[in-house]
């Protein structure tokens, strides 16, 4: 813990004396001394070192045999000699490389890893120059698709076990394993089923050779041809730090850029593989005007801006803006300035309620790993909303934390929709768990969704528990959108005026794909006289928007996002979008209404920052954004306000959730289709038993005239009385549903 005195020890490495914290790994200690100790299997993020590859063999004074540096820690007075000064160690490392290479195929010319391959690099530095192997190398069928996104080449595999250790000890999905023994060992999935999980792609980055490669990136580029642009993933509110590798103006792959406090070098598969949506076939690149009922015809930008101006003027005073929560802060602010200052249009449909109630409990995500007790409240699974947070929770559990979830699929099952009550209970005097949260040294509470009034309810709980006083304690609210808070703040900052009644709606301005796909927004669109939409994909615009302006992706924008920690992070334009940035045309439009708006995100940020971010500059945010300090304590929000309670009604309660692998971007990525939620209805084993259905049985889920046919899936963790369906399979269904067999027989 930060408070403990860190003892220093002095040791000698290759004759160089260094002082390092006691217990520091020898590989890191050598690095402090400016000496490289080569490694393959060593990766601290995967758990304790395994000493398997034998690449890091060193001589330790006083020990006759060579030792692996990775499994040893710095002790006072230690004297180590690496390959730099020890013939024996050099020979040992040379031997390791020779053994790795005896059966390694000469694939470099056709291997994607070439040029950024540790095996190549270390062989040059520490390995033999020629081979003594004269026997035929062992071969395998190759490459094998481990999943649509990942290819496995068993011949190249050096069996460092990084991938299996990731599957076992980080993502804990237990799907990628080592099969057989000895020289016959191979990496495999069960019966060659695909590696299905949220984090499978990380094994591509972990693999030190070209054994696990991305199918998207296969043969796409060589490391010396690409430009790596640092940015932030914009697909969920975690805001993982990424690097986009681009070649000839196109994004070829997304890698992790490792922010130790946010993502620790991991990415979810959506963030990693969804970038190909930039090149989707139905991507809109020109402004489109609605023609007849379902037609769209391309028009010039000048024409579009004229049209837009016209629509805005006509509807003055009766304009509603629907935001997605994935706009950059600058985009949102620009739009807000245009509409609020230029047109007095203050009505906005924000994707979710956001506020600063939790700022007093601010913590970096990495604090989860240090926690003693973590309590999660809510029905939405953490892993679907903010996947990397799930990795932190697993890390916390492994480190000894107790993690309790209260919800419809929680470790403590609660009826659906009772998260607010749970918070009240926990805050109350009689709660055992609440008492433990108060008593624990490092306690964290999380609201996973849905609802939650932007974190207000959670803040009430956290305040009642006294978490803002305590070090390493705090709270996280998981928003539903990547930048909901940033967008909300930006909108609010543009004007202080109150929202007037916009009915009847003259113009609905729809910003972004998420808003364009939202059924609630579509319902508003039905009522509006005209609709102006910004979206990336044609199918999201057809049939309802009168004017469509091409949208851009987070990978194509310079701007800032505010993640769920409250951290501001910089997005960088990794490639030039096929259409102008939203801010650019917003500025042009703003001009027409007498609003001064710069088309440059950096200048817009400066203006906004002075207003609401205490003038923090983009330079301070930098490439690895710091987390601002927690806000000063204030009175806790009142928990007692009673939210609407579900009225007891017949039938089962339908609970929907937005799966991670959903949304317009994911829908357009072939490699991710196998991860999309199956057409299933989840039932508790109790309900399944009672209704007489089992796994795989086809049932109809019906409410008020809408019926959806789904396959039953028994979820043992699910609370009784609930049917759980992914949102995209539950369209049109209401919150109380009836279940029927295909024959029409009603299940009770």
């Amino acid at each position, binding site marked *: 813990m930060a408070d403990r005195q860190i003892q220093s020890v002095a040791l000698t490495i290759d004759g160089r004396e260094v002082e390092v914290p006691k217990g520091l790994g020898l590989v890191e200690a050598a690095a402090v001394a400016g000496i490289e100790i080569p490694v393959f299997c060593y990766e601290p993020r995967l758990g304790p070192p395994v000493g*398997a590859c034998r690449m890091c063999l060193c001589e330790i004074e006083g020990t006759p045999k*060579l030792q692996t540096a990775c499994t040893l820690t710095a002790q006072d007075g230690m004297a180590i000699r690496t390959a730099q000064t020890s013939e024996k160690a050099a020979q040992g490392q040379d031997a390791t490389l020779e*053994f790795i290479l*005896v059966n390694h195929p000469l694939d470099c010319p056709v291997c994607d890893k070439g040029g950024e391959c540790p095996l190549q690099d270390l062989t040059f530095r520490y390995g033999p120059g020629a081979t003594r192997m004269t026997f035929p190398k062992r071969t395998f069928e190759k490459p094998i698709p481990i999943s649509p996104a990942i290819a496995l080449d068993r011949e190249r595999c050096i069996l460092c*076990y990084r991938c299996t250790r990731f599957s076992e000890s980080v993502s804990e999905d237990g799907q990628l394993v080592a099969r057989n023994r000895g020289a016959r*060992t191979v990496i495999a999935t069960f019966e060659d089923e695909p590696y299905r999980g949220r984090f499978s792609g990380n094994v591509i980055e972990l693999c030190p050779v070209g054994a696990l490669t991305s199918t998207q990136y296969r043969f796409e580029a060589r490391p010396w041809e690409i430009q790596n642009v640092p940015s932030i993933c914009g697909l969920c509110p975690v805001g993982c730090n990424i690097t986009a590798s681009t070649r000839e103006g196109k994004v070829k792959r997304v890698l992790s850029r490792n922010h130790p406090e946010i993502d620790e070098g991991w990415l979810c598969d959506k963030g990693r593989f969804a970038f190909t949506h930039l090149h989707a076939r139905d991507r809109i690149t020109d402004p489109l005007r609605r023609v007849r009922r379902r037609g769209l015809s391309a028009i010039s930008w000048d024409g579009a801006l004229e049209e837009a101006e016209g629509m805005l003027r006509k509807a003055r005073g009766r304009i509603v803006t629907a935001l997605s929560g994935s706009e950059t802060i600058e985009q949102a602010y620009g739009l807000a300035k245009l509409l609020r200052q230029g047109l007095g249009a203050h009505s906005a449909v924000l994707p979710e309620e956001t506020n600063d109630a939790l700022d007093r409990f601010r913590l970096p995500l990495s604090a989860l790993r240090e926690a003693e007790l973590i309590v999660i409240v809510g029905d939405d699974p953490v892993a679907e909303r903010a996947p990397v947070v799930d990795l932190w929770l697993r890390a916390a559990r492994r480190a000894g934390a107790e993690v309790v979830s209260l919800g419809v699929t929680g470790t403590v099952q609660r009826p659906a929709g009772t998260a607010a009550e749970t918070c009240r209970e926990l805050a109350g005097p009689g709660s055992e768990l609440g008492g433990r949260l108060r008593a624990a040294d490092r306690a964290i509470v999380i609201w996973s969704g849905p609802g939650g009034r932007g974190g207000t309810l959670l803040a009430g709980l956290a305040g009642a528990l006294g978490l803002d006083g305590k070090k390493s304690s705090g709270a996280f609210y998981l928003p539903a959108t990547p930048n909901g808070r940033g967008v909300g703040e930006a909108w609010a900052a543009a004007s202080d005026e109150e929202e007037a009644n916009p009915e009847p709606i003259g113009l609905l301005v729809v910003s972004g794909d998420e808003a364009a796909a939202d059924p609630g927004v579509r319902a508003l669109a039905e009522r509006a006289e005209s609709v102006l939409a910004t979206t990336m994909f044609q199918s999201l615009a057809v049939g309802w928007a009168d004017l469509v302006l091409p949208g851009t992706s987070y990978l194509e924008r310079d701007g800032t996002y505010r993640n769920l920690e409250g951290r501001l992070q910089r997005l960088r334009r990794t490639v030039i979008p096929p259409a102008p940035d939203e801010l650019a045309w917003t500025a042009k439009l703003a001009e027409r209404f007498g609003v001064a708006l710069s088309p440059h995100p950096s200048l817009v940020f400066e203006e906004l920052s002075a207003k609401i971010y205490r003038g923090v500059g983009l330079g301070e945010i930098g490439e690895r954004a710091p987390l601002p300090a927690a806000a000063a304590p204030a009175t806790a929000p009142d928990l007692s306000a009673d939210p609407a309670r579900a009225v007891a009604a017949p039938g089962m309660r339908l609970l929907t959730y937005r799966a991670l692998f959903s949304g317009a971007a994911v829908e357009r990525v072939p490699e991710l289709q196998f991860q999309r939620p199956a057409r299933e209805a989840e039932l508790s084993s109790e309900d399944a038993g009672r209704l007489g259905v089992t796994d795989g049985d086809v049932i109809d889920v019906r409410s008020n005239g809408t019926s959806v046919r789904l396959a039953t899936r028994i979820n043992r963790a699910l609370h009784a009385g609930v049917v759980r369906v992914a949102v995209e399979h539950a369209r049109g269904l209401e919150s109380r549903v009836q279940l029927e067999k295909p024959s029409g027989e009603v299940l009770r």
Partner: protein
Amino acid sequence: MPRASVVLADADERDLTKLDEYRAVGGYGALRSALALEPEQIIAELTGANLRGRGGAGFPMGRKASLIAKDSPKPTYLVVNADESEPGAFKDREIMLRTPHRLIEGCLITAHAIGSTSVFVYIRGEYLTEFEVLRTALEEVRQADLLGGVTIVLHRGAGAYICGEETALLDSLEGKRGLPRPRPPFPPVTGLYASPTQINNVQTIATVPKILELGSKEFAKLGVKTSPGTAVFSLSGNVVNPGNYELELGTPLRELIYDIGGGIPNGRAIKAIIPGGSSVPVLTPDQLDTPLDYNSIQAAGSFFGSAAVMVIDDRCCMVQLALRAAQFYMHESCGKCTPCREGTRWLVQLLEKIEDGRATHSDLDLLLSVCDRILGKSLCALGDFAVYPVSSYMAKFRDEFEAHVEQGGCPFAGESSIEGIVAPVELHERKSLSGSVDG
């Protein structure tokens, strides 16, 4: 030196699988005495007796027990290594089959000495009959209320030599693939379920009751100063009377092979002796006077190992024997570390080439170089064990290897006693040629 009876005492005269019989010769008396002693006193006795681990490493048992972390909030475990799989060794099998109660008593005494109430006996999967005998004996003990709050779980292995390596055994006991762990940390601090753990071989534990009964001083009178006591020697191969013989340590090798073992049958000449299981360097007839104790064998250039003495007569081609040994280690290599995984396969390939008569002199040098590149660099001792047969046969029988090269074939011309011996790894080869990736 006369044959001694410590671990197998009274087993010839009585059926010591029965609790009543065992008690009749004083069984569980040592346990009673031990329970009246403080744990430190028991450890002192064991240390005083200088009982060296009989599993192969020869580490002093008392010292091992004293390393158990005392300040851990976690429970302490005793694990008995009954995974006997060393080629040539079959002594633990006999102990479990004939004196299971002595083992159980040893477990209970040792558990008390280290403050443990939880004992696991990891017994190799193939020893089904022995498992059943132990299980019955354990039930008797349970019925007779002798356990004293200690639980003993009999856990069966499933066929993997590497699980005899103590940290691999722990992983296997934890329900995983049996891969060795890097050390540090050591089992007395972080062992089974990350808790302080004492691991000992069956024979070692089975010796404990007698040490307590005789007292460390009496026990130490047996054997030799640096290796007191007795050991059960497994004698096999080309001898008239193969079998398990409990002898005082320090008995000369010649006595075991000729006086007790009856010498070489069919008038053949002795060619080589492996003194401690296939994993140790080979000895030659000129070394027959080597006393069978840890230090003497080490001085002779080999190791005491599992006290498994294999006698080889002059009909055996040493290249073929080296190949068969190499095939064993390749089959049993767990695959975790690079030098053993790749090196054992390479050794097999090279030895096949030599035996087939396709090798050159530089291949012989390459063979030794590969040996050298594995030795001391692997995660556990299996790498070294794979090397010792090959490098020692090369050292002592180099002329035979050279002859294969010179003659372009095996000089035994098909008449070697182990001609054509088929190893399990070859069966995998047959399967993989038909396209299967699994073993």
